[in-house]
């Protein structure tokens, strides 16, 4: 691949991610509306929201770190997208691999944490404390899943992982090869996406949306952008590991949309767990399932 093509890919991949992510946000809100028997927002609602937030006159900032936090939150995901191969574009998949990706995916939340920290709002800090605790909870099963996948495929290169699965057709997909790990991953996906029942760190009525409490205007807008990336990233990662990735966008898009649709549907019929219950739940069932799955694949 020529450097020029690579550069184009590197620009295109986050852009695609953003656009698809907007669709996912819309889907999320539509799913919520349908489950609650509402109409839901109009098609362009995510864009309206983002433009409005960026267009606010007042952009309340608590200092430079507050701003850098948002930059890191968005920038981290922009970088993460280039490590995620999608149909026709491999980007930097061979430079980092799945372990790097898992760690790059932590950068946005830590950037956000920094930014929230400077707001000097205890609600925000409590939110971050809960979010990090939740991360400790969901990352344990998730990392076991990543271990299992990398071990089974014998590589951490996501492009190779896709290639291996596609060689064997749907029978060679990760979900068939290691169903238990796929299940555990799905459960921890709920946590990674921060959706109910694991959204205690937002808890609007209790801590006023936690980390977002002091976010106004483009700060909030940045977080909306980040949410698009986030939904996209988890969807693509799961698809890559377990659903054979994508050869064509036509097959790839339904896969990623259906992957993220599952946690979304779960989200709207659940209340939220307390932090300790989040940990208890995520350390118990997904970890048990993942360990069983590992025992199966390692045998």
């Amino acid at each position, binding site marked *: 691949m020529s450097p020029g093509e690579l550069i184009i890919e590197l620009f295109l991949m986050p852009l695609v991610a953003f656009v698809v992510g907007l669709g996912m946000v819309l889907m999320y*809100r539509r799913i919520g*509306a349908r489950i*609650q*028997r*509402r*109409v*839901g*927002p*109009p098609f362009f*609602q995510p*864009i*309206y*929201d983002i*433009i*409005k937030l960026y*267009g*606010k*006159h*007042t*952009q*309340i900032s*608590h*200092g*430079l770190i507050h701003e850098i936090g948002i930059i890191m939150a968005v920038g981290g995901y922009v970088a993460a997208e280039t490590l995620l191969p999608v149909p026709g574009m491999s980007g930097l998949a061979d430079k980092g691999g799945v372990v790097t990706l898992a760690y790059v995916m932590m950068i946005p939340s830590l950037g956000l944490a920094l930014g929230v920290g400077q707001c000097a709002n205890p609600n925000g800090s409590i939110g971050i404390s809960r979010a990090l605790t939740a991360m400790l909870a969901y990352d344990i099963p998730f990392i076991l899943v990543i271990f299992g996948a990398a071990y089974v495929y014998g590589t951490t290169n996501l492009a190779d992982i896709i290639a291996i699965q596609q060689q064997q057709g749907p029978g060679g997909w990760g979900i068939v090869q290691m169903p238990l790990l796929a299940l555990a991953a799905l459960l921890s996906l709920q946590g990674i996406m921060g959706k109910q029942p694991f959204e205690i760190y937002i808890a*609007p*009525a209790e801590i*006023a*949306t936690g980390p*977002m*409490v*002091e*976010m*106004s*205007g483009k700060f*909030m807008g940045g977080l909306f952008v980040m949410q698009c990336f986030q939904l996209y990233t988890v969807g693509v990662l799961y698809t890559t590991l377990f659903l054979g990735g994508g050869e064509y966008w036509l097959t790839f898009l339904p896969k990623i949309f259906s992957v993220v649709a599952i946690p979304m549907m779960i989200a709207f019929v659940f209340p939220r767990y307390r932090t300790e219950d989040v940990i208890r739940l995520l350390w118990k069932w997904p970890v048990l399932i993942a360990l069983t799955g590992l025992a199966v694949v390692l045998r």
Partner: protein
Amino acid sequence: MSNELENIPIRQELEVLQSGQKRTNPLANVFDGLVKFCRSRSMFMLHYCTGCGAIELPPAMTSRFDMERLGIQPMVTPRQADILLITGYVSIKTLKRIILTYEQMGSPKYVIGICSCTVNGGMYWQSYATAKVLRDYLPVDVYIAGCMPRPEAVISGLRELMEDISSGRAESWKKYYQHYDYYLGNQQKLFGEDWQTPTDIIAEARHYDLMTEHTLGEHTALLEKHQKPLEALEMRLSVKDKQKV
């Protein structure tokens, strides 16, 4: 009090302001139009449920009327919100919080007074402990009268606000900066002379270039007398190695 408000030539001034802001670049105008449109289609509301009127909001939000199809979502902090919904009577103690919250919202921001109590005190007009006329203290964009107004009325009020926003009429938030002295005066009458909020409105008015001759006055002078400095903590970067003698 309310009579004084009538004397303020709000509309006129706003129009002058808007015409002054008219940009020369046609693309910029398109962009402004887009932003205005988006503002009207995406309203995050903070409902300050002070009284009985709040009960009408859930039906307006949920499946029967579904606010979200209009792009209206509830939000919980003033930072994120565009609309401040004040439902029902406002006691003096509550009013302090309302003003604080209002000042913490990011502009452009809109206030909707729901129920008669916010218009003229309603059934509480005799009470010593309630603020009767909300717009003496805050610029109100839309009143939705009724005791209580039905969800239909709420929705229609919101729709009216949407139209105001997209047509550029809902600019009352600027009034607060432009006539801060007036609002502050009313607030001081109610809360005493040492009344102060953490938000430095005068500095913000300067920041948004919304200073008029009415922004400052006798009341703001009173405020500045006792106001503790609340400038943001700027980063200080001075590295030196002091050598003690």
